[in-house]
């Protein structure tokens, strides 16, 4: 028997992983949730058929979306995470003793439940007492917040489906308002490679540029996402991601990471020319 999970990356490109077995499948109020097990990537989570994470490469995404802002901010205490029902971002955040409060806003409670059961690799830190869970639409949650957070991490799905509100200007504006005067917002920024993804990436970059005084983009290599070339947005009211970054200080924390390190921190903001061009077009 050959059982394959396939995701269409463009109308003409397909990405497939051979599935050992399907562990879970359910349709929540918001989306279809599936967990598969595979030889190559271990367990993986898909929402509406789109790859969210695999056990094998999730560390890249979660380290890069978390350590970059936390390492730049001199004193991060209050963090808001939107999306992130798999717990990967939470796992990374809870490694910092200085963080006092983590608010997690996930629209779909079932994602959290499923990940707790099937993905212990990412959901292992949900019991940390610093976490407050809010199961509601992030767009709604954030418009009531003002001057409250040091860092906001937008760990969204794609700009269509339940997460599409997290790519809008009203949302980024609300994030700006919810951050303190030296706050930082980091978001999952899509891929620059395939035409449609690039257009979505440009659209959200434009909206962030219009909402924040400092808006930079950095990259990572994520094998199971379309094209493997993935971007993150770094939007900030005060701190520059490289000029205000102290790598020695971060090293002193003694955190063990598999992808992130201070050299890579600076290097991740060095982008290929074609990506710089796409970004410049909308700045």
């Amino acid at each position, binding site marked *: 028997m050959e059982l394959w999970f396939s995701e269409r990356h463009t109308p003409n490109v397909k990405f497939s992983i051979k599935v050992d077995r399907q562990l879970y499948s359910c349709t929540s109020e918001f989306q279809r949730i599936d967990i598969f097990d595979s030889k190559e990537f271990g367990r993986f989570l898909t929402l509406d058929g789109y790859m969210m994470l695999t056990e094998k490469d999730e560390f890249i995404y979660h380290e890069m979306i978390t350590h970059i802002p936390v390492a730049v901010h001199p004193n991060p205490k209050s963090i808001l995470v939107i999306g992130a029902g798999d717990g990967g971002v939470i796992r990374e955040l809870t490694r910092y003793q200085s963080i006092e409060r983590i608010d997690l806003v996930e629209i779909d409670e079932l994602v959290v439940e499923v990940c707790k059961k099937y993905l212990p690799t990412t959901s292992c830190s949900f019991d940390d007492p610093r976490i407050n869970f809010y199961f509601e*639409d992030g*767009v*709604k949650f*954030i*418009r009531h917040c003002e001057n409250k957070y040091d860092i906001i991490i937008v760990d969204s799905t794609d700009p269509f489906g*339940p997460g*599409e*509100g997290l790519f*809008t*200007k*009203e*949302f980024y*504006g*609300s994030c700006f*308002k919810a951050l303190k005067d030296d706050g930082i917002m980091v978001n999952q920024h899509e891929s620059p490679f395939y035409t449609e993804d690039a257009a979505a990436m440009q659209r959200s970059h434009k909206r962030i540029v219009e909402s924040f005084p400092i808006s930079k983009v950095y990259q990572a290599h994520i094998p199971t996402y379309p094209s493997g070339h993935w971007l993150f947005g770094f939007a900030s009211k005060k701190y520059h991601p490289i000029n205000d970054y102290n790598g020695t200080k971060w090293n002193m924390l003694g955190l063990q990471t598999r992808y992130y390190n201070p050299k890579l921190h600076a290097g991740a903001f060095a982008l290929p020319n074609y990506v710089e061009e796409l970004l410049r077009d909308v700045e």
Partner: protein
Amino acid sequence: MSLDQNRAPIYEALENFKRMRIVPFDVPGHKRGRGNSELTDFLGQACMNVDVNSMKPLDNLCHPVSVIKEAESIAAEAFGAANAFFMVGGTTSAVQSMILYACKSGDKIIMPRNVHRSAINALILCDAVPVYVNPDVNNELGIALGMSVKQVEEAINANPDAKAVLVNNPTYYGICSDLKRITELAHSKGMLVLVDEAHGTHFYFGDNFPVTAMAADADLASVSMHKSGGSLTQSSFLLLGDRINADYMRQIINLTQTTSASYLLLSSLDISRKRLALNGREIFAETVEMAEYARSEINSIGGYYAYSKELINGDSIYDFDVSKLSVYTLPIGLAGIEVYDLLRDEYDIQIEFGDIGNILAYISVGDRKRDIERLISALYEIRRRFGKEATGMLSQEYVNPIVTETPRKAFYADKESVPLEMAAGRICSEFVMCYPPGIPILAPGELITEEIIDYIKYAKEKGCSMTGTEDINIERLNVIV
């Protein structure tokens, strides 16, 4: 007799027709799309397959004897009407047919001045004489309200020879008049009651909505199925009470109606009626729930006022349609039209309209909760980023007109074009309106005053889309020589 609302005879006939695989040597010339592949790619094969001509198996809208007749009977029952006509020229054609039925040349018709342009256009066609009842105005919100019963009564008593009373119910903003009482008054003097119910389709199918024209015993009602009813743009129903001669009405409709009615529009009416008749209660309960949620969230932002039933005053706001999401914006220092433009330009959100003091977001069953959240968040952001002191804002949305000529006489009179600034004191021979909502600021035959010129300039400056004049830039007006 009770007809089966599960049926949709036109839709069924089209399905049947597709199976027959008839070879077309008739119009339309695209022949199921084969002759126009770009259009077929764009609209889809399914659409082109049923863009067909009238023929025996599919009946003929101009003279329905089979499936269209049957579909109209089922629709009539669904709406509680004696008869119903499928209309393919928009609710505009329904409103015009109501007036052309009721009035001949020189006949009087009592109507509120804040009618849609289609009603006044009908007066130009048939040379009826309007007796305007000025709508009550809410000065705080700057919006024209419904008709007050007392004013209608005065107009009826002063014009006992009038043939009909036209009521706009509900208004674009969701405001209803006391339709039952107005109907009783009109009927007691032998006048017909015509209701422009363009924004009230859902009243017929949901729970706890204001009274419908047919339930209020009105004689004719024009219902925009394509608004809250879910059918395709341009498709509507004309509903008839039992005092109306349906065969004469068909002749009236045929005066101006196309002889090539689109089966896309007809089938969309048929399917939408079926859907509302079967599931309307749940559909509109959901719509109202979303509108109520949005209203309470918007009212918690501060500044904005999303109004509702608290406005009810027993007369000119006899009832309110809670499915409407009308928001007063002046307290945040922005005209409604400015908020309307910001929503689109900054936030990629298109709402129904913005006027001087208000915006209207159209909520329907097609909306998703997450889109409602976006709208609310965008309004928050607009206030935070663009809000200012609410000074120097014009709120008046309605200027009482001074009518000196009938619309027809003014429209066809010898006229000249003068600059807007020089037009004060002259009689206008054309329409000036913001579209939407399409309610004339000036109609043919009305005196142009300084106040109206200021209003037009202000509306232009704020970015309202002005229409109606021969001069596309609205810098000149046609006036009677």
